[in-house]
């Protein structure tokens, strides 16, 4: 195993120092024989952890595979990603989650942790075999029907209760389905102008309110996926103040983009939950700083060209995000490195109980880290993405920061901004 001496790197943006990696961990000198990496001006962060990634395999390998998604993740500075369950077949059995987990191991670019479905076939009718997935080789701890809300309150209660047996967590896509029938974008001034059926903010807020009460009632852990409204933030703020065991995520795109972009009818901006208003964006940013929202998660949602190059109403929702997440967050938060490390690495690893990730880069810690050049600016070119899909809303946008290198257990997955394999 090669040793690496990363010279003059700024840990979490601090003073320049040398960082030695040997035998897969952060080591102390001597650094004899180590390969030297000149890291002047670069910032070292613990490897990023994404709790919300769609890798599309099995089923839609034309849009993404575990390998191509892993490569995109590594290039985005990630060392671990959680693969959502809405594959085909759905990841609702031990067999499918183990398949995804093994494909991730074979790719070897990031740790791929499968998320199991809460209900069979994501149908919201019957609990999936949550225990079998938890005790499988994939060691599943997060369960979600993402893309679909577990709308039945009794089933949601049962799911929350059941996963307590193995310290599981239910990650909810909060969307009251009756309030969003036919919905195409955020309900408001823009949807009225465009004649697109609205997805009202209250459809998210009502489910979050219900779920935090359920989680409180049964003493379980709830994680709220991709929070998108100011009202949701207030519900979460109150729940956390009461001590409810709830955590929440926000996507980079909900921190930056607004529903006004839909005016082009370009489905690259179609996402679920939809882009909201500027005041929602302000509330989400503040909540991320305050800690009411715990983490940033990408909701990386690759789609084939034909699923996006069509009428808005027929397009699939979602956008790719692994390779642009850190630059977008950097553009929103500025160089608050410790906050970024907390929201994009430490907290997601802690929520998921993922050992070896999200740890400070101290001697003896696993060498899962990423090196960022904060002075670089990059114009996003969709054709240059490693993801198999190109549905980025940032095409042609200049974003700050460049991922220079990523290390997974001491081995580089990205060097000089390029994937190693």
């Amino acid at each position, binding site marked *: 195993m090669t040793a690496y001496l990363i010279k003059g790197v700024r840990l979490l943006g601090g003073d320049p120092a040398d960082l030695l990696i040997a035998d897969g961990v952060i080591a102390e000198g001597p650094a004899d024989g180590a390969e030297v990496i000149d890291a002047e001006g670069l910032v070292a962060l613990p490897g990023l952890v994404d709790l919300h990634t769609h890798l599309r395999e099995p089923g839609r390998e034309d849009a993404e595979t575990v390998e191509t998604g892993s490569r995109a993740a590594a290039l985005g500075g990630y060392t671990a990603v959680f693969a959502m369950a809405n594959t085909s077949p759905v990841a609702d059995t031990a067999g499918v989650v183990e398949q995804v987990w093994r494909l991730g191991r074979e790719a070897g670019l990031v740790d791929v942790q499968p998320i199991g479905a809460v209900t069979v076939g994501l149908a919201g009718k019957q609990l999936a075999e949550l225990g079998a997935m938890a005790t499988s080789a994939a060691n599943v701890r997060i369960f979600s029907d993402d893309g679909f809300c577990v709308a039945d309150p009794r089933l949601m209660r049962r799911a929350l209760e059941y996963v307590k047996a193995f310290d599981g967590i239910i990650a909810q896509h909060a969307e009251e389905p009756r309030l969003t029938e036919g919905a*195409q974008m955020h*309900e*408001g*001034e*823009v*949807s*009225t*102008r*465009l*004649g*697109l*059926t*609205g997805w009202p903010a209250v459809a998210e807020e009502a489910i979050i309110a219900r779920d935090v009460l359920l989680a409180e009632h049964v003493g379980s852990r709830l994680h709220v996926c991709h929070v998108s409204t100011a009202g949701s933030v207030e519900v979460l703020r109150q729940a956390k103040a009461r001590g409810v065991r709830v955590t929440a995520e926000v996507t980079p795109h909900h921190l930056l983009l607004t529903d006004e972009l839909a005016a*082009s*009818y*370009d489905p690259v901006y179609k996402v679920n939950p939809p882009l909201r208003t500027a005041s929602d964006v302000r509330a989400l940013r503040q909540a991320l700083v305050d800690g009411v929202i715990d983490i940033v998660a990408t909701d990386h949602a690759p789609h084939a060209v*034909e699923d996006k*190059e*069509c*009428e*808005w*109403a*027929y397009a699939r929702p979602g956008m790719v995000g692994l390779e642009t997440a850190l630059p977008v967050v950097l553009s929103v938060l500025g160089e608050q490195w410790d906050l970024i490390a907390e929201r994009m690495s430490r907290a997601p690893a802690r929520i998921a109980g993922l050992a070896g990730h999200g740890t400070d880069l101290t001697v003896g810690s696993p060498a899962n880290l990423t090196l960022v050049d904060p002075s670089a600016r990059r114009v996003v070119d969709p054709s240059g993405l490693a993801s198999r899909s190109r549905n980025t809303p940032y095409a042609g946008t200049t974003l700050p920061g460049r991922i220079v290198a990523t290390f997974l257990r001491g081995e580089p997955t990205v060097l000089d901004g390029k994937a190693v394999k």
Partner: protein
Amino acid sequence: MIKHLRSAADLDAETATLILDTAGEMAALAGREVKKLPTLRGRTVVNLFYEDSTRTRISFEAAAKRLSADVINFSAKGSSVSKGESLKDTALTLQAMGADAVVIRHPASGAPHRLASWVDGSVINAGDGTHEHPTQALLDAYTMRSRLGTLAGLNVAIVGDVLHSRVARSNVLLLTTLGASITLVGPPTLIPVDIAAALSPATKVSYDLDSVLPGADVVMMLRVQTERMQDSFFPSAREYSRRYGLDVARMRKLPEHAIVMHPGPMNRGMEIAPEVADSTRSTIVEQVANGVSARMAVLYLLLGGKA
């Protein structure tokens, strides 16, 4: 001149007035023995209809033919579209065939905007989802101007299912651009959120038809789909009709000069009483005739290279 007519918002007051003036000239043609101009000879207009709409399609077809354009009617039913061909692939086919203008009717809001990004020719929105129907607004504006002499300062009440009405959206945009004031009337469930901010600040909302009628110069009744009742937008057809239907008693509340409009097809007895629809105040038949003139004006100005 604008290249596309995707939305009534594409039209400023000057352009809209030019279209209405041109429609007047086109209307004069209808009185002649030979109802045809050579203006668009050699140009190809495609009617690309993803929804059934005999009335609008025939109107556009007549307009294009009276201008001597070659017309291709392309219905999605029974075509490659029903076999799964995408709008983009259809657009590229039309492009290859040299379509100078594509008139598109589509169930998805924004489809004309997408189409315009894929073809070189002009795109004319003939109704997209619950978004807009700008040539309907033009023919309505033309009808109002013909009857009442002006649009500036008119009080127009648009009554009924505004939420799902592309006609209402286009009319609000066009009429306020031309100086009219709009009051949208209907049950709160059928009035879109933030409508004034979305379309025009010169838009008011009322849930009480009776209070609006005495001040209205124009009452435009919208068609109510019976499935809205199943979706609980209102409790029953009877209740809707009692609260928002235009019957003879209500018509009497209108000022002497006021007119009654409807984009058709009507639910007689539901949103409009037969006596009202057939009264001298009603412009419903005129609207159909004016539709051809307005669409001729649009095709002429978009493709004729004038102005």
